[in-house]
């Protein structure tokens, strides 16, 4: 457990030293979300309808943008190899890295989303549900993304390939995440969607570090 916390602390420290990377992804999220009203038109009824989908798709893209740096730097300077040799299970260390990634790439999106939701004329209640759905969903994005990042480590054209691999797997999270807000707007209650999102999170927390570890071992061979 100590090693886990040490990894989280280290990755957070590294992110704090290189703030620009975190902020680039955040501004990307803001810009993408702000482009949609410009493309579609300012009618607030339309905007309210597309808001959950737009915010979720933008979150998906922004979370994916930062996946490349999850393992790449550690792979380059050999840290990853040392980690795989350490007595602590690699899966635990990978979970630590994923948690740190979520704290720097996912959590800011969750906190920023309500502000952007205001641009789309969402009610306070919908904003709350949007936040909860992102809170449950963005860790899933980090977890699944870790598998993709590990698989494309050191591969030609890794960035584009990563999106090709990871985006189809993000679809359930997108459907339930955006669906929660839409169901609430339609007066159906968001409970079911949020529970399923929670179930995805539980599944991902169990399986994803394991799969990512297997992929990392292949990359390190």
């Amino acid at each position, binding site marked *: 457990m100590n090693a886990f916390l040490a990894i989280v602390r280290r990755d957070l420290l590294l992110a704090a030293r290189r703030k620009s990377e975190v902020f680039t992804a955040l501004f990307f999220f803001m810009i993408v979300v702000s482009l949609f009203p410009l493309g579609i038109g300012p009618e607030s009824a339309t905007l309210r309808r597309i808001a959950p989908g737009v915010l979720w798709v933008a979150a998906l893209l922004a979370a994916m943008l930062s996946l490349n740096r999850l393992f790449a730097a550690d792979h380059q300077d050999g840290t990853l190899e040392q980690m795989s040799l350490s007595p602590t299970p690699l899966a635990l260390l990978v979970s630590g890295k994923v948690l740190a990634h979520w704290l720097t790439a996912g959590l800011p999106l969750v906190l920023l989303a309500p502000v952007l939701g205001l641009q789309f004329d969402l009610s306070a209640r919908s904003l709350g549900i949007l936040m909860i759905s992102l809170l449950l969903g963005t860790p899933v994005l980090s977890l699944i993304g870790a598998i993709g990042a590990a*698989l494309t480590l050191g*591969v030609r*054209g890794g960035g584009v390939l990563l999106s090709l691999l990871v985006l189809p797997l993000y679809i359930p999270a997108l459907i339930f995440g955006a669906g929660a807000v839409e169901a609430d707007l339609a007066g159906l209650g968001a409970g079911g969607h949020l529970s399923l999102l929670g179930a995805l999170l539980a599944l991902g927390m169990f*399986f994803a570090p394991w799969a990512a570890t297997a992929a990392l071992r292949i990359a390190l061979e």
Partner: protein
Amino acid sequence: MSQRLINWFKFASPASFYPLAGTLWPWFAGLASVLCAVGLWISFFVAPTDFQQGEGYRIIFIHVPASWMSMFIYCVMAFWAAIGITFNTRLSGMMSSALAPTGALFAFLSLWTGALWGKPMWGAWWVWDARLTSELILFFLYIGYIALTSAIDDPRRADKAGAIVALVGVINVPIIYFSVKWWNTLHQGASVSMTKAPTMATTMLWGMLIMALAFWMYSIAIALYRVRAIILERERHATWVAELPEMQR
């Protein structure tokens, strides 16, 4: 028991599988052409015209077997991937990568024929039906697999990475299917139910089953043919390849 196990593992070596695949694939190819001819004859000339859908329904003789195969081949791919990871056999990875293009082809074929069928029946080339959407996502999964394995130069690493993608994908396929299905029912879009149909005439059913069998045989034949090419490409420095009669010329 142990004797039998050894017999199976004998063919896990590319050197002994290569001639076996060589003798088997023409048989499967022959069966495929015969079954395809019979199936097409039934579907075009024997099967009666549907009183609701007219002649246009005949596209299902291609469409339904193609979608079955596209789903089934993904499972087979994942099966070989699992075998490859657990037993660390080289041939399993080659089988997976030999199957992937065929699976992608069938997924594409089923989307294409589905669009051709949808235009006269539903009045739209594409509807966001749960089945269509999940078939599209399956197609993306195939493309992701092919893209990843062809981007990695070392074939052993490509196989293993591909195996993980295939396994992660196969876990996700049911999740994706149910999420898409639920998303579709929530939206109540242009959902036309295809689930409660099968009161079809026996000849139609026969035509479809024979076509499905023909596609099976085709897939096996083409996978064996392709795996032979992959074996040759990867083992080209091995002595047994140099000693092959077709290499002597």
